[in-house]
């Protein structure tokens, strides 16, 4: 019988070897998994496990036509580790300096400094007592574009690298600066839409739990939990870039011609309350917000109040007409200097010109202070106050951001003896430009006060609507008939017979009212400083656009008074003329048949 390979001795040796190996492995396993388990697990966790945060991209802010007003893009903060720079790469430094747009000498100083002096106890210690600390990072540029960064990487300079981060950019610069707001360097939204709608814009960062190898590269196969980042939503505003640009260009014209302290223009659709353009002078560039003083960053249209002056006369006249206390042909003696009201003689304010008997239509058209005061007295203190409140004075309009103030409208019990004669002409009341604009828009909108609409909708990145803001009626202030009558009276005011002749647009019925008030300086009305304004809308019969222009302390080249008809009404006209072709506003004579507009129509279109 042949003896098998496995002799007893061999088997014993083999078994002993296997047993020893098993014992060794077991001992090692016990050591690793039991005795030193906690220590090793902590070490592995620290060395290999990592949580990687995926930053969400902040949503864009768009205008009503989809133009980007604010967007996010990645930029690279470029730096270098002077400890690992190679001698042979120094030849590439000039090209690097050129790509970064900095002088070569500046770059060389930054790269050649390899150690920083560091005091043992204090920075006041003498130089020889200080220790030198190796510099591992020196910043070369705060924001390098992706394309430039790629070219820098191609230079293959060891030790030069960048860290990517998202940066908010505003392609329009100062366009709609007071509305958009900005994100500061810490990434905190400071003002405007950026702050108000931060919840929707910011998105939600994602994260994943993973492991890394010795070279700190992620080992993707060991990903355990993963929450994807959710990018922020886009916010669509009712603003129109083109209209906004017209408004800001007009403000620049005003600033150049009249050198005012400040100026504000608002353009809106009175039927919906949607704001198409809104801007203030002075303004600032959102990409360089840190260069602008805080005072310049305020949205003056909602944060500052002024005495509206004659534009406020729409309140008393609308109220008296709406309560059927007067008709447009009711007359008042505007030559009187005082009148008895509630048993007391009240002095009436003066007029720019001496008037005799004026009808209500003429009072509005010629902007008679005495006439307005008598309309107020006819209405009575309480009703005048109620109408002023109904038109939105003394309360916030509901403009959602920018620190809106409610203005100032005292209750009747706080009035003095003169208030009943001064309030109807727009004194003894503080209004914001936004309040004045929406009060006039009430007449344009058939007597219904609308809430300002600035946010149109919120979309996700696939342009799906998440939320949409609808026009919102605040209240009916006057009847539709009264509004129509007032619009007619305001057409007279903005005509050759009225004070707003400069606002007339040929071929269109413009309704509007000028306002000029003396500024209160040190508690007294100034003879030299005025706030000139024009608030109106057109076409008067089918209003499509309401425009408010307010110029604070305009300085005429001739040195005269900066009346609203002089400094503000021409701006209304210029803006209106540019909006007509853009918004397709039809002239007053338009009807349903084909409209012939000038010779061009006859020349170019002939029916077949």
């Amino acid at each position, binding site marked *: 019988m042949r003896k098998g390979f496995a002799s007893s001795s061999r088997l014993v040796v083999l078994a002993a070897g296997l047993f020893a190996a098993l014992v060794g492995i077991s001992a090692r396993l016990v050591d690793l998994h039991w005795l030193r388990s906690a220590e090793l697990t902590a070490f592995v966790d620290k060395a290999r496990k990592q949580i990687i945060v995926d930053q969400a991209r902040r949503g864009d802010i768009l205008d009503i036509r989809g133009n980007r007003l604010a967007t996010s*893009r990645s930029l690279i903060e470029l730096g270098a580790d002077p400890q690992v720079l190679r001698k042979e790469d120094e030849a590439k430094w000039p090209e690097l300096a050129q790509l970064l747009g900095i002088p070569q000498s500046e770059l060389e100083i930054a790269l050649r400094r390899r150690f920083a002096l560091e005091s043992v106890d204090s920075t006041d210690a003498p130089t020889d007592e200080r220790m030198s600390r190796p510099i591992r990072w020196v910043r070369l540029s705060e924001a390098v574009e992706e394309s430039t960064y790629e070219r820098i990487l191609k230079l293959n300079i060891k030790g030069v690298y960048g860290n990517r981060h998202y940066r908010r950019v505003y392609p329009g610069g100062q366009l709609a600066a007071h509305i958009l707001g900005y994100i500061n360097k810490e990434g905190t939204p400071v003002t405007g839409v950026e702050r108000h709608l931060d919840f929707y814009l910011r998105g939600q960062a994602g994260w994943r739990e993973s492991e890394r190898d010795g070279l700190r590269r992620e080992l993707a196969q060991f990903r355990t939990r993963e929450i994807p980042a959710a990018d922020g939503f886009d916010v669509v505003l009712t603003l129109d870039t083109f209209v906004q640009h017209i408004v800001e260009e007009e403000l620049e014209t005003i600033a150049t011609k009249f050198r005012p302290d400040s100026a504000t223009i608002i353009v809106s659709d009175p039927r919906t309350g949607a704001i198409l353009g809104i801007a203030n002078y002075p303004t600032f560039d959102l990409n360089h917000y840190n260069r602008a003083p805080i005072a310049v960053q305020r949205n003056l249209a909602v944060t500052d109040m002024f005495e509206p002056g004659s534009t406020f006369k729409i309140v008393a006249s609308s109220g008296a007409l709406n309560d059927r206390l007067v008709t447009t042909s009711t007359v008042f003696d505007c030559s009187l200097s005082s009148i008895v009201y509630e048993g007391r003689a009240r002095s009436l304010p003066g007029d720019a010109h001496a008037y005799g008997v004026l009808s209500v239509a003429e009072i509005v058209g010629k902007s008679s202070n005495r006439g307005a005061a008598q309309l107020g007295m006819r209405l009575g203190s309480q009703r005048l106050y109620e109408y002023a409140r109904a038109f939105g004075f003394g309360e916030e309009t509901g403009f959602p951001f920018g620190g809106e103030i409610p203005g100032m409208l005292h209750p009747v019990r706080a009035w003095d003896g003169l208030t009943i004669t001064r309030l109807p002409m727009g004194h003894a009341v503080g209004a914001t430009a936004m309040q004045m604009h929406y009060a006039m828009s009430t007449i344009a909108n058939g007597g219904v006060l609308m809430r300002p609409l600035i946010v149109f909708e919120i979309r996700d990145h696939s342009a799906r609507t998440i939320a949409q803001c609808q026009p919102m009626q605040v209240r009916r202030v006057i009847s539709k008939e009264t509004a129509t009558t007032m619009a007619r009276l305001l057409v007279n005011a903005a005509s050759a017979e009225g004070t707003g002749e400069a606002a007339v647009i040929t071929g269109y019925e413009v309704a509007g009212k000028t306002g000029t008030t003396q500024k209160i300086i040190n508690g007294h009305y100034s003879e030299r400083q005025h706030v000139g304004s024009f608030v109106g809308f057109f076409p008067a019969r089918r209003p499509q656009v309401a425009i408010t222009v307010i110029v604070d302390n305009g300085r005429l080249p001739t040195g005269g008074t900066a009346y609203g008809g002089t400094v503000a009404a021409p701006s209304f006209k210029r803006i209106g003329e540019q909006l007509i072709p853009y918004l397709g506003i039809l002239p007053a004579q338009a009807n349903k048949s084909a409209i012939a507009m000038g010779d061009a129509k006859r020349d170019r279109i002939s029916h077949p």
Partner: protein
Amino acid sequence: MKKAPSQSVLWNRLLIATVLLLVFAGSIGLATVWLRHQVSEVAAANRNAQVRIAELDRRIAEVNSQVAAGLSPDVLLRQNTRLRLGLAAPRDNQIIRVDEEVEIRLAAKRNAELYTTSVVPASFPVSTPR
């Protein structure tokens, strides 16, 4: 003694079985390693794809912001001046307002053109019977 050979055969068989078992176990181990390698390869490829997508997203965002900056009214006006294009907003008297159904109007115009088009004389060879 007949018991000893049968015992060695048994031991031999057991040894062969053990070796086969080890080979089998080794194969499973190798297969596991290969599978894990494949998993890591796929995971790495996925990660690279994600990195690439993020890079493309960044590029798109950069291009979008450049386009937006290029389309801002101020920039367009400067380009208009720089390139001497002389573009200007239309004046009111240059605008023709069509207040009727555009489709019907265009169709009518087109039909009128069709019916009033003058006939162009044309000649072509005609075969005649011999």
